[in-house]
């Protein structure tokens, strides 16, 4: 088992989950409450990573981060090295790739919050921000946990995008799933199995926790 790759992957997953929460909460809020008619377009863009082959997504992210793109050039002028095939590129690629896994559970949870509670909060003098943090978010806890668990687990196990934008640099961009691929290529099945089992266990535990919590939430509010 390659602990370096494992720790790197955990670090990536934690970072990506944190970033996606910050980005995903306002996006999900906007998708749920905006009166704009064209918001379905944004919904489609957010959902794209669900259906696109990771290599396609990874390819375009690589182009966008490369030294010929404005983003790549800006990064180079800032840091002195290219963005592609770095840990930062891995974070950016993973954020884009896992975006629907954060936004969709959140938006689904927000839309089940009765609008009457939002209206009641406003009549009690609460700003939209206060209504969001005191009413909408607490009533969407199950969606929030689902979003965190899915985003974390999904980032832990991603392969295609990571390979495209990060390559396979030990300690920098080599994640567990790439490590497993390498082990299999080297016919080192025992080691591949060990790592794969760890990923399997993490995914199982994460999903079990989410489902267990969701049951508890239902039991708290029996009248609904």
């Amino acid at each position, binding site marked *: 088992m390659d602990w370096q790759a494992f720790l790197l992957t955990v670090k990536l997953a934690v970072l990506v989950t944190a970033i996606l929460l910050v980005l995903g909460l306002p996006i999900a809020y906007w998708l749920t409450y905006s009166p704009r008619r064209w918001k379905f377009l944004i919904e489609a863009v957010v959902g794209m990573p669900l259906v696109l082959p990771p290599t396609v997504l990874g390819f375009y992210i690589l182009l966008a981060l490369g030294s010929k793109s404005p983003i790549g050039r800006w990064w180079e002028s800032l840091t002195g090295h290219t963005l592609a095939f770095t840990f930062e590129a891995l974070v950016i690629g993973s954020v884009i790739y896992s975006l629907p896994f954060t936004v969709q559970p959140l938006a689904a949870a927000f839309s089940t919050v009765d609008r009457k509670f939002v209206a*009641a909060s406003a009549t*009690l003098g609460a700003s939209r921000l206060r209504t969001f943090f005191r009413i909408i978010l607490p009533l969407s806890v199950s969606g929030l946990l689902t979003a965190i668990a899915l985003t974390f687990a999904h980032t832990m196990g991603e392969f295609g995008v990571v390979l495209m934008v990060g390559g396979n640099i030990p300690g920098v961009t080599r994640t567990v799933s790439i490590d497993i691929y390498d082990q299999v290529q080297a016919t080192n099945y025992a080691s591949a199995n060990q790592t794969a089992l760890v990923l399997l266990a993490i995914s199982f535990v994460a999903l079990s926790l989410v489902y267990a919590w969701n049951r508890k939430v239902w039991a708290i509010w029996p009248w609904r």
Partner: protein
Amino acid sequence: MAVEVVKRGGKPATPAGGPGSAAPAGLSAHIQKRLRANGSREFMLDAQLAAPPGITILFGASGAGKTTLLDCLAGLLEPDAGHIALRGRVLFDKAAGVNLPTCKRSLGYVFQDLALFPHLTVEANVRYGLAKIRGEEQAGRTAAILESLRAAHLRARYPGEISGGERQRVALARALVTEPELLLLDEPLGGLDAPTKSAIVDDLRAWNRAHQIPILYVTHDRGEVFALGERAIVLEVGRLIAQGTPHEVLNAPRQEAVAQLAGFENIFDATVDATHEAQGTMTCRLAGTAVTLEVPLSRVAPGVRVRVAVRAGDILLATSRPQDISARNIIPGAVLTLEQRDFMITAQVDCGVRFEVHLTPGARDSLQLRAGREVWLVLKTHSCQLVAST
């Protein structure tokens, strides 16, 4: 104060005036809002009203636009046109581009389904609207309002753990604790038993005496109108059709729609035969019959077609022609049907037109009423109301 009849499409008799001009201490509003209810026909709310401090009852059938009107006042819906002013403060003015967000309107709103926050305790629910004041004062005011509404023992419970009446008290406490400048109550006591209801009504009246703000109270319960209201406004399909004291609006309705809402079972077409200015009465002949009724004098000329409304409970039944009685209308007829529902008998009596009469089982038995029996209907002049058809 006379009942003001507002003709469809015309100007209301009460000058609601410009923003803040009519009732500086109260609410003045003119709201126009077109709604496209899903699938059904378009609905247009067009209401001009002035509500001074005190309880104003908003009365109307379901679908009349009562909740839409409250939502517009609260800023939850944006009117297409009009203005809303509260104590001289402009909340909304389409022409001037003013639209204060709900959270800045300082109002209390008790929703029909209460909308207590399910994840917060009773105390946290009530305290929610006090975010802008200091912590100790928050606790003090929360405790005081829960105490005065007799809900202090519920403070640590969640809304899902208390009864319907208790939830209604808590919702009221949550709205009142912020000391709003306008209180909107959307059937807040619906579905409660009478003793619980009258206890909460007493609490609300007491609070109102101390605070004197405009309170709009939506109901379609006649009993609540008389128990609570100093004024009543009647809304029908988006239009304000009558306002006055509850007694004036509901007991002497000038509009057929109000008469139906207020429970006038008998509404007839009639023609004015003669007016008796000195007596304060006039004679009307019911359309298609020889039956004449003496009704209170109204400003209409003989020959004009009118509508007459009579409550089924205001009609007396006799099995022989009554003599020496003050009532001016004694009409012969025959019982068509008798139907019992709970402890009330509904009799249909044919007098040329069909009258509905309510009586008790005891009255039916002592008069030995049955279908086909010859009877006399006895109606007081003032039990007969002229209404304008809408």
